Each structure stands twice: as C-alpha cells, then as structure tokens.
C-alpha cells in the first residue's frame, strides 16, 4: 500500500514565523502535491512537482514556497506565517504514467493554526 506521511498532525505557530511542513511518500511516485482545505472552499492546489528539483505553481501559491530535493520528499514552506494561512494542509502523490497515473494518494493532513 502507498503510504504518504506528514510531519505533524497539529501545529500551532505565531504570526511571522517560518513554517516547514514535510511530506514523505514511500512508493517512488514522481508527482507530489500540496493542497489546503478550508470550509466552503474545498481543496485548493498550492504547488505541485513532477520531478526532483521541479516545482509548478498551483491555484494559490502566494505566501508559500516548496522544496523537492529528493524524490520521496516534498516540503511546503510558509516564509512568514499569517493568520489567513490557518488551515488544513494536505499532501498527495501520484504516479507519472500507467493505469493509475491520475489517482492521488493523500497523507493524513496537518492542521495548522497561526496565532
């Protein structure tokens, strides 16, 4: 079974702090994604990556950056956390090709609160 893990289930940070959210997948997937989920807004794509050291902006990249130094790890960085970044953050991965290429496998989520 594919396993996607996220470094924290719950995180509380202060405004202005630099925040790192880590995501690791164990199935050698090429693609990795970061979403945020907010009530009434659904899942929104922040950034994604199709390969090591490669990144693409999603629909709401402002205030975020990412890093993919190794294939299995995709990090989301909040350079200076703000209260409007309080949200549930979900990481996902998928294969680049094949029968199940479009299926995404999600981690358990990190609920971030910025005070």
């Amino acid at each position, binding site marked *: 079974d594919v396993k996607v893990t996220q470094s924290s289930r719950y995180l509380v940070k202060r405004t202005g702090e630099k925040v790192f959210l880590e995501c690791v997948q164990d199935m050698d997937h090429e693609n990795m994604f970061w979403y945020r989920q907010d009530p009434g807004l659904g899942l929104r794509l922040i950034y994604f990556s199709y390969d090591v050291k490669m990144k693409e902006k999603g629909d709401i990249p402002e205030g975020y950056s990412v890093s993919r130094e190794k294939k299995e790890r995709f990090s989301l960085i909040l350079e200076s956390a703000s209260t409007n970044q309080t949200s549930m953050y979900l990481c996902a991965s998928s294969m680049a090709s094949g029968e199940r290429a*479009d299926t995404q496998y*999600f981690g*358990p989520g990190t*609920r971030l609160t910025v005070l």
Partner: protein
Amino acid sequence: SQQGEEDPQALSIQEGENATMNCSYKTSINNLQWYRQNSGRGLVHLILIRSNEREKHSGRLRVTLDTSKKSSSLLITASRAADTASYFCATSLGKLIFGQGTELSVKP
C-alpha cells in the same frame, strides 16, 4: 473557478438505505474520480471512471458518468454507519480539480 460541484451538500440517511451523490462539471475531462474523507483526515481514493466509460462498480459503490450532461453520480448501496464521511468528486484534465464535497451521515 470551481470545476466539480457536488449535490447535495449534506445527506442524512438510515443504515441500510442507499445514498446517491451527484457531481456536475464544466469542461471536458480525461476521467472523473471520487474520494472519501473521514473527519479531520486525508482523502482516500474510491473509484475512477474514464471519459469513455458510462458506469463502473466497486463493491457497494456504483459510479455513472454522462459526458453529454457533464455529470456523474456515486451510489453507495446498503449504507453502513462507517460510511459516514465527506465525499468529493475530482475531475482530471492534466491536474485534479476537486468539488466541495457532500457530507454523508448514516445513522445506525
């Protein structure tokens, strides 16, 4: 812009009844997927239906796709309390775009 929109937003049924959720979308797609999310957790993939397929089954799940109407439905038969969760459709055309979900509550 929102691609998939689920209907209803919330659904409450008794155990043993069937649950039907609908999804409408706006543009052409490669495939449509349904995911499930238990409260406060990540999403779990349930089923994928390709644009050239009309119906697909997986256990107690039945998915239909009507590309002419740009709509899909997810039917859960003989529901159980453990089916209580939020269900999302996601359309794929290069990347996945998720709807806002249907909250299903199955009462024992």
